[in-house]
Structures are given as C-alpha cells and as structure tokens.
C-alpha cells in the first residue's frame, strides 16, 4: 500500500511538468475557454458598461452606454453614464448633442465636445445629472463620462 501510494505520488509529480507545459502552451486556448465558461466581463466601472443605444450620424456614431450604479449586491445612489463617439478619424471638430440616458425619450443633458482640444461642456436638464466627470481621447473613439445621482 505504501509503495503504491509512493508510486502514485511520483506519477503526480511527473504530471506537474505537463501541467506547466499545458498552462504555458495552451494558455491562450484555456483562457478563452475560461472566459466563455464563466461568462465574466470587465467591471462596468472601468469599461462604461454595455452600449444600449447607437445613434448614426452618417460619418460617425454616438454610443450611449447604460447608466452604471452597480455595487456588489444591488445598486448605489451615485453613478455615471458614458457616451462614446466613433470612429475617431471621422469625428467633426465640434460635437453638440442632446442625450437621453434613462431609457425614455426625455433629453437629460446636452454635451458640447471639441474633438480637437478634448474639452467638453455639460448642460443638465435633469436634476439627477450632476456634472461632467471627464472627457477622454481613447484609441478608437472619444468618450465623456457624466456623474449621475439618483434621487
């Protein structure tokens, strides 16, 4: 029994070399499998959350993300919404747009964005729209984040 146990232990120890090789050589494949199996995504606090509406302006598009209030369980009072404009190369010098962000047709705020200087201005039509968190020149798009606070 002891010898059998020892032999099994040696077999497992040898197997560890193959585990190492599998983790390194099959890393890309296994990583894709892991993501598919678990269905995880990067937190919306970083990505801006899912795009819920796309407005086509011909040469460019406006992407409206869902408002992010996520917590570990449920939602919190303070959050933000992210608006993107893409593709970066086709954006006009000035963007001026009304945005409805709470899933109804009411305009909640207006954004003026200078795509050359990356300066944005916010005009709020809704008391739940608080301020401009920032405007960002990303790799393939421009984005703004607007701070929201639910009543």
């Amino acid at each position, binding site marked *: 029994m002891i010898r059998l146990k020892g032999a099994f232990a040696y077999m497992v120890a040898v197997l560890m070399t193959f585990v190492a090789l599998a983790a390194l050589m099959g890393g890309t494949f296994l990583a894709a499998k892991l993501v598919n199996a678990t269905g995880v995504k990067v937190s919306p606090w970083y990505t801006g959350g899912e795009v819920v509406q796309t407005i086509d302006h011909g040469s460019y598009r406006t992407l409206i993300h869902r408002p992010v209030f996520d*917590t570990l*369980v449920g*939602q*919190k009072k303070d959050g933000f919404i992210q608006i993107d404009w893409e593709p970066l190369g086709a954006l006009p010098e000035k963007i001026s747009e009304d945005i409805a962000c709470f899933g109804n047709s009411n305009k909640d705020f207006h954004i003026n964005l200078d795509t050359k200087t990356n300066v944005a201005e916010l005009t709020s039509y809704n008391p739940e729209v608080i301020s401009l968190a920032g405007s960002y020149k990303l790799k393939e798009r421009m984005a703004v984040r607007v701070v929201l606070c639910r009543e």
Partner: protein
Amino acid sequence: MQGFLLGLSTGAVCLAYCAPTLVPYLLGEGKGIRQSGVILCQFLGGRLCGYLIFAVVAWALNQFVIIPNVDYESLLGLVYIVLAMALAFYGLRNNSAPCAGRSFNASVNRILGRWPALMAVSLGFFTGLNLCPAFLLALASACELNNLSQSLLFFFSFFLGTTLYFIPAPLLGAFKGLPTLRIIGKMAAVITAIYYLYTGIIMFVGGMNFL
C-alpha cells in the same frame, strides 16, 4: 411589512457594508460558534440603536423642513472617523501601548472589562449609522411616514429583514481552533480602520467629489 420586505430585498447589501467591520471583529475575538452568535447579537443590538436613531431623523425630516440644511456628507464622515477609531482601538487594545497611551488604554480596558459587550455594541452602532444604499432606500421610504411610531416600526422591521443575512456570521466561530486568526482579525481591524479613517476625513473635509 413594507420595511421587512425592503430589508429582505436589500439585506445582502447591508451585510456587504458591515462585513469589513464585523468579520475582523469576530475573528479577533476568537470565540466559538455559540459565543460568536452572542457577539453578533450585541453587534446587531448596536446596529438597531443606530437604525432607531435614523427612524427619529426620518420622522423629523418629514415634520420639520429645516433639517435638510445639515451637511450629511460631513456628518457621515464624522461617523466613519469614530468607527475607524473604535476599530483601531479594538485592534491595538491588547498590544503594548506607547507610554502616553498606557493610562488611557488601562482605563478603557477597565470599562470594557465591566461591560464587555460595549465594543461590539458600539461597532454595530456606528456601522448602523452608515448611509449604505439599502439604508438610503429605507430612509427615503420612512420619510413618507407621518407618525414617529410608524417610522420606528418601519426601521425595526427593516432591521429584522436585513438581520436574516447575518445569521451565518457566527459560523466564523468554527475557526476558533486557529488561535492565529485572532491576531489576523485584530490586524485586519486596524487595516480596515485606516481605510475608514481616510474615507471619513475626506468626506468630512469636503465630500468625495472634490477628489
């Protein structure tokens, strides 16, 4: 009933907000499951006190419009600072204190020796005063009630609903056989205290938004 249901639906949020205080404390005490249950009851008792104070506040908000002038962000910051101090004191209490702190340490130890539940109750009380999302929902609902007794009842039933989520907490007592967990719990209490202290100071001096 409405308060109880609200407590049931948002209790997990309450647990998430209380865990950074409660878990290190339960581990730090190093008691068995039954005694951890007693500690949890003391903690929840303190938390109930915090809730009932808010029941009065919610009622007053509805009765007197002058209260909204209070700077809640600063007030909450202050609560966080006191909670941080309580946690830090708990974490460092049994360790050798610096000379200047020794007499203070001894006198507080005397008080805690007389009322050992005081630490758990006060930690529960100050976490109860935190405006977590679930709590804000309860506060908003209670503000619509005209009667003080109704407001108190609403918060009490809200407390009962959320308390169900805390029931598994005494299971941490199963680790009482690992004495090292007591040290780890106390050290974690100090680390959590530093986090709350920073958050409290920032909120107190002007809100998180300026950062």
